[in-house]
Structure formats: structure tokens, C-alpha cells
């Protein structure tokens, strides 16, 4: 029944069903209350949303739209112009009228975003401070990412080892690589025999 009552309140019932519903409402207090609550909700919504909206000054809307109509008119494809020649002519005319199609287009692209971002600003932060704070935050993030990367880079110097000594036999050699501040000494055993200091030129 509730769905029927919604349709009744919305004026969406066929005449015959509406008459039956009205007859039912006379006898049913529960349904009368349901209808009353729906109508009350509608009244609240209209009072609080529609009336304040009517009070808003929309006189600046058309001038703002008119200023951008030139760029809007050049979208020949979206306009579905059937006649190619006429479309091209209108395109040229619109471009001549607007004179700044690119700029207007760019404005249209970014129009909604900045305000949404700006409203993320906490109330205690003054508007003039938003820019510097955002720049500082970006710098901090950049440093936080860049510094660890820089510290993990491989120093080419660490790939160079100094041969401290070479002990060779016929079938094997033992080479002592000197340690560095970042690496311990290394004893390198190789099956290449007969190595000498001359095999490791500086």
C-alpha cells in the first residue's frame, strides 16, 4: 500500500485507483498519517531548498555564459552540424567572435576543481596562507621522497678494490683486496694460477 500512497501523493495514480485510494484514506488512520508525513517532508524540502534558491541573484549568469558562447559554438562535432560548409563557416565566425578559444577552453576545464580544493582549507588557515603552505608541503614531500633515493644510490667508488697482496701457486691464487671505509677486506681465492701484482694494474 505504501508505494501506492507514494504514487497518490505524487499524483501518479490512474483516476480509478486514485478514487479507491481516497475512499480508503477516509477509513484508515495509518494511511492518512503516512500521506501526511510524505506531504510534510515535501513541504520541508520545498521550504528550505526551493525558497532560498529563488532568492539568489542569477542576473550575472547570462553575461558569464555569453562571454563563453564563442568557444562553445566552435565545437562543430558536438553541435552535430549536418552541413559541412555551413559548419566550417560558423566555426570561423565563432572563432573570430571569441578570439580566445584556447583560453576559454582551459578555463572550462579547470573551473570546478580549484574551488573544491580550496574548500579543503581548514577554517583557521587564512586564504593568503594557502599558497605558501601548499608549496611548503610539496617541498617537504619532495624531500621525503628524494633523500632516501639519493642515500641509496650506488657509489661507483665502492666498486673499485685495491689489491693488497697476491699469493700464487701453479693452479690457484689468493688475492687480498684491501678494505675501504664502507667495505671489509676480502680474501679472493681463484683457480687461476700464477697471478702477480702486474695482473692488477692500478
Amino acid at each position: 500500500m505504501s508505494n501506492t500512497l507514494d504514487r497518490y501523493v505524487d499524483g501518479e495514480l490512474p483516476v480509478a485507483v486514485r478514487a479507491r485510494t481516497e475512499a480508503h484514506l477516509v477509513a484508515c488512520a495509518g494511511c492518512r498519517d503516512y500521506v501526511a508525513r510524505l506531504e510534510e517532508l515535501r513541504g520541508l524540502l520545498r521550504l528550505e531548498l526551493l525558497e532560498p534558491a529563488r532568492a539568489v541573484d542569477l542576473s550575472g549568469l547570462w553575461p558569464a555564459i555569453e562571454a563563453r558562447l564563442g568557444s562553445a559554438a566552435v565545437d562543430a562535432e558536438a553541435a552535430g552540424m549536418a552541413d559541412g560548409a555551413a559548419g566550417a563557416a560558423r566555426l570561423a565566425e565563432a572563432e573570430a567572435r571569441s578570439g580566445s578559444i584556447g583560453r576559454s577552453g582551459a578555463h572550462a576545464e579547470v573551473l570546478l576543481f580549484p574551488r573544491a580544493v580550496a574548500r579543503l582549507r581548514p577554517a583557521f588557515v587564512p586564504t593568503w596562507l594557502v599558497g605558501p603552505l601548499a608549496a611548503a608541503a610539496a617541498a617537504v614531500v619532495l624531500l621525503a621522497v628524494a633523500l632516501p633515493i639519493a642515500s641509496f644510490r650506488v657509489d661507483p667508488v665502492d666498486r673499485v678494490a685495491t689489491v693488497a697482496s697476491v699469493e700464487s701457486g701453479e693452479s690457484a691464487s689468493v688475492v687480498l683486496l684491501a678494505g675501504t671505509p664502507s667495505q671489509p677486506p676480502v680474501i679472493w681465492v681463484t683457480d687461476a694460477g700464477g697471478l702477480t701484482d702486474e695482473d692488477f694494474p692500478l
Partner: protein
Amino acid sequence: MTQVPGGPSPADEELVAQARNGDAAAFRILVERYQGRAYSIACGVVGHREDALEIVQEAFLKAFRMLGGFRGESSFYTWFYRILVNLAIDFRRKVRPVLLEAPDRLGDARASNPVEEVHRGELRAAITAAIAALPPEQQAVVVLREIEGLSYAEIAEVEQVPIGTVMSRLFYARRKLQAALARYRGA
């Protein structure tokens, strides 16, 4: 487009045909004819006046660009409302967490005393919050039905869904709004 002062208002279809041929004056009449209702719808969905104004502006510009694609199979306003509602819903999905306009920014010239003003501000904030808590599709249906008074068939056309879906969305949206606003009954 020349309009005779005091003469009958041209029909939407006539204005659309003229605007399609680049007649800005004809399009201006359409804008001024629907700007108030468009603003109510956008405001109801996004919950913020300045955002609503920008969305209305974008919707009219988009409509102007797409006039050539308007076949006249539906009325101009349902076709235009579809553009508007889609823009508003998209916007709402993107910025939902920061939508609610602070009650003190809304003002209320109708309140006759400070106590009433506070009460009305609280009530309006509650309504705005209750609407904002709805899924965007339910929100649009509520605004189109309760604020604009569109029929189920017209809403179905705007939202491109079956009438049954409109009824279902409206039914659940109303239940949620009634639950959220129960303490203001009789206000």
C-alpha cells in the same frame, strides 16, 4: 531573435531551432527561462551555492554545444536537466566530503528573531545533510520530484532509467529522509 515586448513567449522548440543556428538571443531566453529551476536542482544535489552556479553555467554551455544533437524527441527541459543532473552527480561524486555548506553561510531573511533563526539554520543544515547522505541517484530523483515537481516519466527521461527505478529510488530516498528528519516533525 527579436521578441515583441508584451508578445507571447516563444516556445522552447522555436528557441532551440533559432539557437541551433547561432542565435544567442534565443538561447538567452532559454537560459533565463530555466536558470532558476536549474539552480534549484544543482543546489539540491551539490549542496553548495557557488558550486551550483558553476554547474548551471557549465550545463548551459554544454547544452548550447550539443543543441545540434537534440532531436526534439523529448522536451528541451528534460534534455537539459539530464545534462545538468549528470554534471551535478559527477561533481558530487568527486567532492562529496566537502559538500555541506555551513548553516551560517546560508542566512535566513525569513527568521523573525534570533531563536527562530538558529532553529531554521539547524533545520536547514539537517535537511542539507540528510540529502547529502543519499546516493547521488536518489538525491537527483528527490530534487527533481519534490523540488521541481517532475512526473515519474519525466524523471525517467532525465535519468535514463525505467519508471520503476524512479519509483524505487524515490521510495527509499523518502524513507531515509524521514528517518533523518524525524526529530523535526511538526517544525
